[in-house]
């Protein structure tokens, strides 16, 4: 009887897992059914599509690099030290996950209409409706997640390694560089790739700050929205396929990296 109930649970739970797979496969195949061979490559290699791909990849790369510069030390501090406000910072990292990207974009937009924001726009850099606005939108969306993922990597590494290194003559920076950084490198790499993929797919904040200007602020998700709004189904399908391909490639790559993670 006991075995029977275990078997029952096994079957039920596996069928739900299989349902999840089927659900997404049906959606993907229904997308593929819209692809027509000749038009697909015409649209794919068109100047406008190539611009969107380049713009998305470049903006996401810059956003990820900027977030990395801040995330690495911030994640280390959150993982290793106790300090005033730590819990609040830890909480705020979840902000991009709980606030809608459109709302996040709107918050940034409102910022640029207050005195400080206006001064920045006029004297340092124009962000609204520009390439820099796209970077800022993506940066805002991924920073918290990047910090969280890198922090998790540092959390897995015992501080004893660095402590021992310090008793052998390494100062705190040398111990970090020679011990924690290499031990955490795979987690950092995985965090950056996933953040990059999230930045490439970012839509809500980007459209709110940078708008929908063809060949100017037309990232891949914005381009999909623009094509759908004029009922260009073929164009939208090509762009969605590209995004899907990037996402799956990234996931595969990250799994490869994480799969060979050293046991620190």
């Amino acid at each position, binding site marked *: 009887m006991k075995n029977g109930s275990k078997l029952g649970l096994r079957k039920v739970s596996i069928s739900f897992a299989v349902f999840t797979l089927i659900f997404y496969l049906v959606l993907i195949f229904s997308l593929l059914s819209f692809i027509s061979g000749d038009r697909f490559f015409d649209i794919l290699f068109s100047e406008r599509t190539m611009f969107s791909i380049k713009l998305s990849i470049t903006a996401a790369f810059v956003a990820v690099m900027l977030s990395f510069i801040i995330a690495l030390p911030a994640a280390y501090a959150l993982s290793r030290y106790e300090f005033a406000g730590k819990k609040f910072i830890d909480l705020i990292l979840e902000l991009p996950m709980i606030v809608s990207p459109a709302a996040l974009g709107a918050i940034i937009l409102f910022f640029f209409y207050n005195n400080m924001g206006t001064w920045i726009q006029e004297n340092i850099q124009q962000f609204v409706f520009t390439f820099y606005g796209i970077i800022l939108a993506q940066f805002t969306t991924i920073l918290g997640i990047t910090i969280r993922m890198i922090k998790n990597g540092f959390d897995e590494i015992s501080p004893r390694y660095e402590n021992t290194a*310090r*008793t052998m003559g*390494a100062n*705190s920076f040398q111990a970090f560089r020679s011990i924690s950084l290499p031990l955490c490198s795979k987690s950092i790499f995985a965090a950056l790739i996933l953040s990059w993929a999230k930045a490439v797919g970012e839509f809500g904040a980007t459209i709110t700050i940078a708008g929908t200007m063809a060949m100017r602020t037309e990232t891949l998700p914005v381009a999909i929205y623009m094509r759908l709004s004029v009922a260009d189904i073929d164009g939208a399908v090509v762009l969605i396929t590209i995004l899907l391909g990037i996402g799956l490639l990234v996931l595969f790559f990250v799994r490869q990296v994480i799969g060979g993670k050293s046991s620190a």
Partner: protein
Amino acid sequence: MLRINNLCMSAGNFSVNNISLSVPDGCCHVLLGGTGNGKTLILETIAGLRPITNGEILNDEHNITSEAPENRFISYVPQDLALFPHLNVEKNIFYSQRFKKNQSRTSKEIGEIIEFMQLESILHRSIHNLSGGEQQRVALVRAFASGNKVLLLDEPFSALHFTMKRTLWGLLSDMQKKYDLSILLVTHDLEEAFFLADDISVLHQGIILQTGTKEDVFYHPNSIEVTKITGHYNYFSGKVLDVIDNHRLINFVKLGNNLRIKNNRLAPCDQVIMAIRTSSIEIIPSGSDLSNLSNTIVCEIKSIYETSHYQQLVLTISQQMDKFQDYLVVDVYDKRNTRKFEVSQKVTVSFPEDAIFIYKDDNCR
């Protein structure tokens, strides 16, 4: 030489108070105590990994209390060894050579110690592919390679098989003498402490109860707490009945007998606790002449437990009226196993005067 003066520190609700000890060049000082008594906390503080609240730490008479760990010239081997998992054995050992410090060992010296510890054949192996004993040896050599003459070792052999422990004790001891190292070692293993120590400090609840040579601490424990940490003892409460020259006649109700014990501090009516090692009590062979023996009682064997090198007898203590009152544990080391004991057998036991430790029981009025 490492010297600690009145060191105080705390971690959460636990604090360590007024720790003072010294480890001369070429000596091994053992911090002995149970788990949760602050041994690791002390080592981490000396290594500079925790802040202190009071006191000072001197290495070769230089005050290093406020120095960063890398400027203290003290190597620390934590209990889990902390071998760097992304570096192979050789890179672990030579890690300290990346940082040019005055006291770094030369490659020749490190090569010698690698040979001495028999690590030549595994230098290019990953840390993950080492046995427990190999990992311990790599950790010790790595600590040595840093050139620091003071080593802090936190239960470095606790996870090892007994025979491997014995081998490594010997290697560590030889290494210490050869290179004149000062070692502060933390352990709760009595045999390890006795094997390696020159001096021992007994730690209990963040306070050092006794410091001295290993002979002092093991054979002249200064308190009941020290006896509990340094061996297996029987304990009996008693009351001083009479003073006879420099001896005291003490009644132990649970032994059902009075014992005559050498002591010149106790006064009549003082309440005392007697401690005697389980291995110090003698079982008198039947038929022996008891007239020359003092402090003997008759017991009955309740149970017998055998280990590889001694027999443990649990005895019930009988008075003249055969009222069984309490248990007495006796360890009989009889390598040839010539003495046979049986359950329910009556035996006479003797309490050698020099093996009895008497402490005034301040909890009694």
